């Protein structure tokens, strides 16, 4: 059989390699496909700028409206309502104009209409989450302070890891680019119940089944269609943890091979 493959080598060595120019290959921007992509990037930039403008215009309008609302002309002059967006600190300054000069009449109590305004925009409490980004798992694992399962042997050309954390919430989101195939991993510590993938992804579920990997862990697998893109989503629930993998651009067998590599018991020791 080895001799047979020597013949194979001879045959392959005789294969005619078409001429090509390295300079042409390097000059990717000349290539039709990349020119198209650049066009697409321009279109996306235009759309983003348009969207930004469409958001900014009403915002400026609203700011002008608020300023106008806070400025009140009276028979004796005008007054400006000032507030630092906290109901307890809200004050009203009165100014009087006697025809020649402007005098400060001091702080007034908060009129009812301002109290109504304040009640709508002060109550929201902004929650701040610490967010860190990494390009390598090694760097991410130094900071991630809880056990995490991830496929170690994927050959990827790009990896982006985002780690978000605060007192009650932890989320690791990793995106792999495996050439044309994109694999996304979402990992969270608190969403174990009521996790509704179909509404989360706004996707139409085409097929749904379970897959038990070689370590005996069961994944709920859904074949979904999301904006004309076929995705395979696999979810494993372990205690309060959820691991979700979203695959696009690869076939079932590739999905199973990756799922098989998850030995979750290694990561979730009670």
């Amino acid at each position: 059989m080895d001799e047979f493959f020597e013949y194979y080598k001879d045959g392959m060595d005789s294969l005619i390699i078409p001429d090509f120019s390295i300079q042409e290959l390097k000059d990717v921007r000349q290539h039709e496909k990349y020119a198209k992509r650049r066009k697409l990037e321009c279109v996306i930039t235009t759309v983003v700028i348009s969207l930004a403008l469409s958001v900014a215009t009403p915002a400026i309008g609203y700011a002008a409206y608020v300023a106008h609302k806070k400025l009140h002309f009276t028979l004796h002059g005008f007054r400006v309502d000032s507030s630092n967006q906290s109901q307890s600190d809200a004050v009203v300054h009165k100014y009087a104009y006697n025809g020649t000069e402007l005098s400060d009449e001091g702080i007034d109590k908060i009129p009812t209409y301002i109290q109504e305004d304040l009640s709508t925009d002060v109550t929201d409490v902004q929650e701040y989450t610490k967010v860190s980004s990494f390009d390598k798992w090694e760097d991410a694992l130094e900071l991630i302070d809880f056990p995490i399962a991830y496929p170690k042997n994927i050959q990827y050309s790009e990896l982006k890891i985002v780690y978000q954390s605060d007192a009650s919430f932890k989320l690791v989101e990793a995106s792999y680019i495996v050439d044309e195939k994109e694999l996304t991993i979402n990992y969270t510590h608190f969403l174990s119940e009521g996790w509704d993938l179909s509404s989360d992804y706004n996707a139409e579920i085409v097929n749904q089944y379970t897959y038990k990997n070689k370590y005996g862990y069961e994944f709920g697998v859904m074949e979904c269609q999301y904006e004309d893109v076929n995705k395979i989503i696999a979810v494993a629930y372990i205690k309060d943890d959820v691991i979700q993998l979203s695959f696009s651009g690869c076939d079932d067998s590739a999905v199973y091979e990756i799922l098989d590599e998850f030995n979750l018991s290694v990561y979730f020791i009670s």
Partner: protein
Amino acid sequence: MADIDEVKIRKYYSKIYKFVYMQVKNREDAQDITQEVFYQYFDKNIVFPDVEREKAWLFTVARNKCKNHWRTCWYRKIFDEMENISEPKDISENEYERKEDAFYVVSCVSKLPYKYREIIHLFYYENMSIEKISKITGKNKSTIQTQLDRGRKLLKKIMIK
């Protein structure tokens, strides 16, 4: 330095072209896909820690592009090995016979299903280890070993026919 790069790229180009050609079995498609691989290579401008990883990356990209090619087109064209293999000139009768045998073997391998064909090419032509093929294809090492054995058996059957 540019010359070293050029030599390296030319070597890779030939390897990738041959690999792709054995997968798509069509000269034009193989040329297009190989060019795509190298457009991506230059576009992404990835710095690889060593030559082996660079080679593995190129083969992985080429493999994925072949798969995409099958998904998107009904490419089934007849493999004409004589058209794409250089004609032997001024060679002895023995050498000519060996070349003919070589063409025959290439055509036999090309009749294998894709999953066996790519592994046999990487193993026997590129002299890659099972581990390296496993990294490129994303398959388990045991799967590669099984597919290699099955590929060889199937090849025997094709030759007997």
